[in-house]
């Protein structure tokens, strides 16, 4: 039962089994999993919103109503021709009857339309990205040709989509921050419990001249280690979940709404780092606060 002093290394001062460590680890893993997914989701939702806003801002839709003896297709073709000449328009294309019917089919079956009522014809206008056309110029060009048409200003929707995207980003980041805060709160609570459970050790250390910072550092280190192990598990689980999501492909409904890319998975990395930092800081501060109440 002897020890070779030349080969001795210090053992961990805190007992290996602090109360509630398994539950704390499990909770930190779950919170980190959710925080990592929230960060990945925030990036994807922002990208989706920007993509939609970009698509909307770069185009306009024109609803053409045929009048007189002119057929709807002829009116649409004339409108497309007039719009193509407007400065800032890259392309103006009249949708065919079947394309217009396909767009409307979600809302009404064209076969159900009363006799003599045609599906309105649409002209899609793509703008020059550098110098996009003004909506007023489009309207003026159509009026000059005597075409009865309504120009839909997509900019109205662009701002809405941008705001929604930014709101989703803020909500996801707030959620991630709250989860990291929850890790901190749990670690602080566990450190206080640990401080009480290890009261004998704390007393022995203090009587031996340990500064409060040294004792608090033991708890900070222990909970940082615990949080690191749990957070890595949580972040890895989030990576697997996100990878499965990416693997679904862009055709799946969810993947189309939330376009997660492989590069987004890197956003899972800060979650465990922040969780470890929060756990260590909170545990250290809680231990210091507890120690400050001792003589």
């Amino acid at each position, binding site marked *: *039962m*002897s*020890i070779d*002093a*030349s080969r*001795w290394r210090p053992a961990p001062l805190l007992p290996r089994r602090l109360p509630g460590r398994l539950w704390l680890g499990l909770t930190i893993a779950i919170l980190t999993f959710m925080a990592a997914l929230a960060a990945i989701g925030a990036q994807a939702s922002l990208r989706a919103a920007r993509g939609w806003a970009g698509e909307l801002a770069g185009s306009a839709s024109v609803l053409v109503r045929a009048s007189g003896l002119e057929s709807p297709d002829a009116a649409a073709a004339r409108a497309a021709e007039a719009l193509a000449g407007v400065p800032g328009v890259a392309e103006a294309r009249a949708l065919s009857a079947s394309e217009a019917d396909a767009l409307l089919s979600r809302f009404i079956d064209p076969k159900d339309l009363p006799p003599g009522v045609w599906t309105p014809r649409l002209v899609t206008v793509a703008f020059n990205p550098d110098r996009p056309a003004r909506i007023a110029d489009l309207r003026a060009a159509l009026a000059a040709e005597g075409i009865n048409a309504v120009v839909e200003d997509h900019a109205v929707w662009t701002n809405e989509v941008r705001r929604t995207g930014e709101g989703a980003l803020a909500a996801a980041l707030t959620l991630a921050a709250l989860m990291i805060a929850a890790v901190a709160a749990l670690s602080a609570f566990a450190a206080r419990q640990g401080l009480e459970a290890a009261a004998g050790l704390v*007393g022995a250390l203090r009587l*031996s*001249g340990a500064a409060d910072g040294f004792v608090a550092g033991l708890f900070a280190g222990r909970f940082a280690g615990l949080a690191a192990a749990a957070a890595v598990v949580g972040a890895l689980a989030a990576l697997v979940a996100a990878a499965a999501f990416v693997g679904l492909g862009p055709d799946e409904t969810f993947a189309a709404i939330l376009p997660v890319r492989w590069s987004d998975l890197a956003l899972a990395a800060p979650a465990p780092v922040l969780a470890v930092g929060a756990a260590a800081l909170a545990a250290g501060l809680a231990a210091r606060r507890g120690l400050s109440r001792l*003589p």
Partner: protein
Amino acid sequence: MGAGTRAAAPAPDQGAPAVVFDDVVVRFDGGEPVLAGVSFALAPGSFHFVTGASGSGKTTVLKLIAMAERPSSGRIRLFGRDVTAIGKAERAPLRRRLGVVFQEFGLQDHLTAFDNVALACRAAGRRWRDYRAEVAELLGWVGLGGRMAALPAALSAGERQRLALARAVINRPELLIADEPTGAVDNALALRLLRLFTDLNKVGVTVLIASHDEDLVARSGAPRLHLSDGRLTAFPAPTREVGA
């Protein structure tokens, strides 16, 4: 290793008494005072016993010296420093000049005997490469050279007591305080422990032991501070040399 081969403890600050109690009162929750106006001074390098019946305030005196309790009123000076007036940050370095052996030992069940002694070095901020040989040597000195890897639960009461003593002196304290260090051991071991204390005293360590073991106190020949109902009823002139 004998205590005599250890380096002498550094001299207390400018020859100031190691401990001074000046009209110290301790009263818990507004009840009857545990200590009622206790005053005494211990010269550096002296050896004293604190005696008295159970509940007379012996342990409280030691806890006050260890800064584990605070007095309700009065002043306590350690090595010339008024510990009732200093901040928490200043207490830790002052505690490193003390060695404390409390009744319940304060040994950590999850640490080996070696690590229990090393705990004091770590608390004092020493580097493990610097003290590990010293720990082994000290454990040998207290007769635990063959029990270094044992956990406290596997040690006898006497071995635990010697382990607590080793931990208390590993940092070469200037003042060693012990609460009933022979309370759980037989006479032979009590005398052996007393010898360890006197060896330390001979190299300049001020020693204060709380004990109700009249036989041990008488054998030591050391002066006593006698407490009765929280009052000091005897305080002889301090002596440097005590019988072994």
